[in-house]
């Protein structure tokens, strides 16, 4: 995207007025999406965005400017703007050398398309949408509305900094989703399912859109006869792959170093301590296969890595980006991410998951006399300072006498991270991952969450039944 000599001059300009770190993050991103709704292909959309974000760090202060103009003139202008906050010193000219270092994570370093990542044609996308629509509608007469979406993005990034780092990556992502509405005597109910991977249309070699659509449709149908969720504290069994969102919210965010260094997390100062049940070994791993939160290098040019956060219940480490790691005299854990070149990077999760246990999933249900079985979770939210978090169910059932019985209407569950982590008393072998979009401080990034079937001895369920 930008030649090394240009990058070198821009980084020099960025540090001309002082400062101890400068970085250029350039991005060329194209997106495409197709939406089928109400039985019609309603909208095909394509987008293209390219530009660069330049930051200059001087002590505790970061200056940041971005531009859509990737010419040398445009970049120099942005460097000048970013360096404004560092302009307290007397100036002087810094000389910055940039040498090409291939990312250790094995990222695509060339400018060509990543291998084995085909961008499907518009016609292929439409065919997939029609098949999904048909599969969902054929699931039951009560399915009254189907919306299916197929979207992809390709992102080429280049990162160069004044410490000599130069990294490139090509990222392709594809997502397919189906939302259904079922209509019955009790009103409307909804069902949703999605699949998303860091791949091109190879996604569709791995998943069946018919199965995915059928799952979304059955989810809506089952809730037509659902009764109100209970209110109060009950044991909860989470199905394998139902959404490791529990860990994402209960502790993932609280282990991000930006919250830690500001003492704004319940997990501050707890490394080495037992923070969870011994059954909990939690990792954040940006290198796993083609999961939704996978990449070769992060948005600061660091290779993705696997970080063990909790080992058999003991807190072992936090997640780090460049700035927070530098402050602590260590290196980034490859968790510096940003939504686009228009955003500053911050500490973000990648794929965060609980390693599987040894129990049988069915046996865990059989050994639960009364409780709630959550087959699918929706989103969640946490206050990292207090540890209080919520997560929503989108498919749940009562457990009575060790058996899964009646379907329940959607509800949020609420808990406190450090307390809930200690209430995990069973983890099975049936591991599964779920893609999600994580929002933090106004920026959204793709993440993966995962766990095997597991039981919490007690969680407050926010239903309407007394």
């Amino acid at each position, binding site marked *: 995207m930008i030649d090394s000599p240009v990058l070198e001059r821009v980084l020099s300009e960025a540090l001309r007025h002082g400062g101890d770190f400068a970085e250029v993050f350039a991005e060329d991103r194209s997106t495409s999406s197709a939406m089928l*709704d*109400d039985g*019609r*292909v*309603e*909208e*095909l*959309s*394509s*987008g*293209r*965005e*390219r*530009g660069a974000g330049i930051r200059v760090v001087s002590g*505790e*202060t*970061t200056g*940041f*400017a*971005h531009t*859509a103009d990737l010419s040398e003139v445009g970049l120099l202008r942005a460097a000048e703007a970013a360096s404004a906050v560092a302009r307290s010193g007397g100036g002087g000219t810094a000389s910055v050398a940039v040498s090409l270092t291939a990312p250790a994570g094995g990222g695509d370093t060339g400018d060509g398309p990543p291998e084995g990542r085909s961008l499907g044609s518009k016609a292929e996308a*439409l065919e997939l949408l029609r098949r999904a629509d048909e599969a969902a509608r054929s699931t039951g007469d009560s399915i009254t*509305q189907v919306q299916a979406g197929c979207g992809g993005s390709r992102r080429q990034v280049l990162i160069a900094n004044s410490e000599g780092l130069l990294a490139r990556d090509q990222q392709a992502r594809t997502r397919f989703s189906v939302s259904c509405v079922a*209509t019955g005597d009790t*009103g*409307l*109910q*909804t069902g949703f399912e999605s699949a998303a991977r860091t791949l091109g249309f190879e996604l569709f070699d791995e998943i069946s859109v018919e199965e995915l659509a059928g799952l979304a449709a059955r989810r809506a149908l089952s809730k037509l006869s659902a009764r109100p*969720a209970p*209110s*109060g504290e009950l044991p909860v069994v989470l199905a394998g792959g139902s959404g490791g969102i529990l860990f994402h919210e209960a502790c993932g965010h609280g282990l991000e170093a930006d919250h830690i260094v*500001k*003492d*704004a997390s*319940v997990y501050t100062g707890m490394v080495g301590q037992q923070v969870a049940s011994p059954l909990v070994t939690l990792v954040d791993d940006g290198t796993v296969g083609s999961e939704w939160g996978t990449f070769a290098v992060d948005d600061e040019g660091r290779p993705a890595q696997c970080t063990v956060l909790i080992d058999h219940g003991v807190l072992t480490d936090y997640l780090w980006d460049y700035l927070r790691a530098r402050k602590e005299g260590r290196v980034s854990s490859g968790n510096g991410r940003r939504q686009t070149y*228009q955003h*500053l990077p911050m500490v973000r999760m990648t794929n965060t998951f609980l390693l599987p246990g040894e129990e049988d999933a069915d046996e865990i249900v059989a050994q639960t006399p009364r409780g709630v079985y959550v087959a699918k979770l*929706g*989103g*969640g*939210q946490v206050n990292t*300072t*207090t540890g*209080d978090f919520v*997560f*929503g169910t989108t498919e749940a059932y009562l457990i009575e006498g060790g058996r899964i019985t009646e379907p329940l*209407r*959607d*509800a*949020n569950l*609420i*808990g*406190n991270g450090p307390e809930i982590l200690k209430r995990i008393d069973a983890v099975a072998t049936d591991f599964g991952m779920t893609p999600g979009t994580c929002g933090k401080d106004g920026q959204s990034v793709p993440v993966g969450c995962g766990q095997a079937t597991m039981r919490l001895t007690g969680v*407050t*369920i*926010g*239903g*309407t*039944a*007394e």
Partner: protein
Amino acid sequence: MSTTTESKDATGATAGDGPDDLVSIADRVAGWARSGEDVEVYVARGDETEIRAYGGEVESLTSATSAGIGIRVVVDHRLGFAWAGSLDGTVLEETLAEARDNATFATPDEHVQLAVPDGVAAVPVDLWDEGLATVPTTRKVELALALEAQARAADPRIRQVDHADYGDGSVELALVSTTGIRASSRKTSGYIGVGVIAGEGDASQTGGGFSVGRGFDGLDPDRATGDAVIRAVRLLGATKGPSGRITVVFDRRAATTLLSVVSAALSGEAVAKGRSFFAGRIGELVGDPVLTLVDDPTDPRAYGAAAYDAEGLACRRNVLIDAGVLQGFLYDTVAASRSGVSSTGSAVRGGFSGTPGPGCRALALTPGSEGYDEDGVLAAVAEGLFVQSMTGVHSGVNPISGDFSVGAEGLMIRGGKLAEPVREITVASTLQRMLQSVVAVGADVEWLPGIAAGQTLAVGDMQVSGV
């Protein structure tokens, strides 16, 4: 007056004192339309400054300009869309070509069409603060630093200021179509926000406060810090509250969120596609008679005030619920055609990369005749739960089924006054039942950032799950 537009049909004139260069770009691209196709061009440009203070220093300062274009092409009742984050000449051509290509894949749909001028005159709203551009960055930095310092010093129990931010921005846009739409507008905004952590013993609680305006002047640090501090401090010592079926008072901020959620079910598109619990209920009593709900973007006090909607039609006042009776929905051009009605001038879109759809901009409840402020509502309710913030709204509220279940924190109401703090509880009902169970609507209307007003709202018969 800073926002202008004129319909070509009505006057043949071009847009007035809006950003002429953007109108020219939009005109140029619309001029490339081929015979038999309609083209709508949306061009936007923005400037922004963001400053975050931490520990007495500037943690980050961002300054940026961005611009982009979104093009819709309709050929034979097929719609295609493309956008780009650039206004370069070749990019404009490529984007139009891409939108045109996308159109060929859509299913023909007789309702798919671009807006045409409907003769409704726009109510001018002044959203531009001329002074903002002249405020030097150093003053903005000073304000962010002062905000942080003030928050740290506000109360001995404040042990951390998580963030203290200043932000401002300006957006200019032009909208031109081959169907006769020519609109342009511009808008400035200013914001300060602060988040604090209060501590006492082992307990920590958080609170946030902010102040918004059209520019720099008028941003009120006292208000932002005062709000943040009281919200954090009054929650200290909070325990998991009791369970039961009680009346819940939503504070102004929580009520804004609540109205925004209800608004999704008032979208004419959701209704036409069977995705709203309001479908087929016009003329029916859907709420307590105390409820009158109006979307009025022509009210200049509203945060979402606008003269024109996202298709270039005049924004107008739309009564949605009158004394509990459902009156109508919000429509853009396509949803209106699908429903056999006219657009209500309610198209919204998320910038140049989004396509328009119907939505609210300035939703508010007509205050109850008692003229209650927050204290008045609390006194009237006497016993219940006061909710100052909700979590999991995106995961626990479903505007299609109406199921409502959120995490909440706040204080119990005893003897008509705020009592002990509670946390880690959920509040649940259905939106349908909540509308029927509104007990009081406050007159303390405050236009908060977003699409709905904040006003204290009391809802009876809600299930609270705690201990």
